[in-house]
């Protein structure tokens, strides 16, 4: 069970310094002093492991999904912050240099300014770092600026935290624990360097070029990329890529988009992009031939690993159709005989993407395509309103559809309500796939 193994691995890393401290066999101080020290040891280990939960390390994200990893990164950082904030306040032993007879520093808290200042600096910086992350949306800061600051501040917190442990720690004075801290710091900074320096450097050998851009629906474009290298991207239908168009591969100016093409269709990648915000407003002006860089594949919105479900239901809201289109195309290309239903919601008819292709798939393969419009035209034969629990119940509350695989993509509220409705009609949540990158 990969997710279970990841949890065990996380616990092993987060508790390793505490375990080594425990194994030293030093006589414990008061429980309050030991609690303070333990909080510091666990918090620092959690902070260093956070660097592996970046959402960009595929060995991790492909097992449980980038959204799960990012949610874990966010919530575990908050837990670490609570531990860090509490860390200095439970010490009750007198703070003074240890007397000659107390060689293991059992009776006092013994550190000088030399060991204290990195701890205070890390303590303050971590508070700022988490506050900045929580207030990211409200601050209005450019995403690229925020990412750069977040990375630099996190690296500073990690470095200062380890320096504090090495200079002030009673248990970290032991060489085994000192080397563990140095190893974990190297792992953390190495992960950062891999994502922002080494991986972009390796991408220099795999340049892409914009091979086409076409208007698909209201403020929605189809962008295609072709590899300018020998080879292709190995991906599964439904995964997503970080795209950097027209910038240096080292630029932080990249954004995630679902791949709408089917892997079996060839080496070109297709993306369905809606103009919504700074990053996508200029999509229609991208010139064919523009250099592009692709960091992929990511995500776990894929049908293949989920076994032989007797049918596949896809529920899309707006541009959330993109990964589901990739899945539908791939299933069709492979001649998958299972019944398929696509529920596709939009506000008005002009927003429907791939209308002709969906119509063709519906006629030639028997795929049931159900369009839902909240502002339908006067003459409309599809469903109206939103993708509500009632609508989902009408289509899926049937015994023969209980064991199907359900794949959801769209606005956060739609996914949440659809997931709840499906669970209420008895679909096991393990048969429902979704990715949500909206957190609090």
């Amino acid at each position: 069970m990969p997710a279970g193994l990841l949890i065990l691995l996380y616990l092993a890393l987060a508790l390793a310094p505490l375990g080594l401290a425990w194994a030293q066999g030093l006589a414990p101080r008061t429980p309050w002093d030991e609690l303070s020290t333990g909080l510091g040891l666990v918090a620092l280990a959690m902070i260093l492991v956070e660097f592996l939960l970046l959402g960009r390390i595929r060995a991790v994200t492909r097992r449980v999904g980038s959204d799960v990893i990012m949610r874990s990164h966010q919530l575990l950082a908050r837990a670490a912050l609570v531990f860090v904030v509490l860390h200095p306040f439970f010490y009750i032993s007198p703070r003074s240099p240890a007397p000659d007879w107390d060689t293991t520093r059992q009776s006092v808290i013994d550190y000088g300014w030399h060991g204290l200042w990195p701890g205070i600096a890390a303590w303050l910086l971590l508070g700022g770092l988490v506050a900045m992350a929580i207030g990211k949306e409200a601050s209005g800061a450019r995403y690229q600026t925020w990412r750069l600051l977040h990375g630099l501040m996190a690296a500073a917190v990690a470095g200062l935290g380890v320096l504090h442990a090495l200079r002030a720690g009673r248990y970290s004075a032991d060489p085994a624990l000192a080397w563990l801290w140095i190893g974990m710091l190297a792992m953390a900074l190495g992960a950062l360097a891999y994502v922002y320096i080494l991986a972009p450097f390796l991408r220099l050998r795999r340049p892409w070029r914009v091979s086409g851009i076409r208007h698909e629906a209201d403020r929605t474009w189809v962008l295609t990329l072709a590899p300018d290298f020998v080879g292709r991207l190995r991906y599964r239908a439904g995964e997503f890529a970080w795209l950097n168009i027209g910038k240096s591969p080292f630029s932080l100016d990249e954004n995630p988009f679902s791949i709408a093409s089917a892997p079996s269709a060839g080496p070109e990648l297709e993306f369905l992009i809606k103009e919504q915000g700074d990053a996508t407003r200029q999509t229609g002006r991208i010139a064919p031939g523009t250099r592009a860089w692709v960091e992929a594949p990511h995500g776990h919105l894929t049908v293949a690993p989920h076994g032989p479900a007797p049918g596949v239901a896809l529920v899309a809201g707006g541009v959330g159709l993109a990964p589901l289109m990739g899945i539908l195309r791939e299933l069709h290309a492979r001649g998958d005989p299972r019944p398929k239903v696509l529920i596709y919601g939009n506000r008005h008819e002009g927003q429907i993407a791939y209308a002709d292709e969906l119509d063709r798939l519906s006629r030639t393969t028997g795929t049931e395509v159900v369009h839902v419009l909240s502002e339908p035209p006067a003459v409309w034969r599809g469903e109206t309103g939103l993708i509500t629990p009632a609508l989902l119940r009408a289509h899926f509350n049937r015994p023969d559809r209980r064991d199907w695989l359900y794949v959801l993509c769209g606005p956060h509220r739609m996914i949440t309500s659809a997931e709840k409705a499906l669970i209420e009609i008895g679909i096991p949540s393990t048969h429902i796939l979704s990715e949500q990158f909206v957190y609090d």
Partner: protein
Amino acid sequence: MIDRLLAPARRLPARRRTEAALGLILIVLILALAGFALRG
């Protein structure tokens, strides 16, 4: 038996399952901290 144990998890949306797993991690960390502080 295992199916019965996992039944509540099967009714949790993915997001809640993630949060439940993180809650479990926190409980283990806190228990380890308590053990460390109270040893001896």
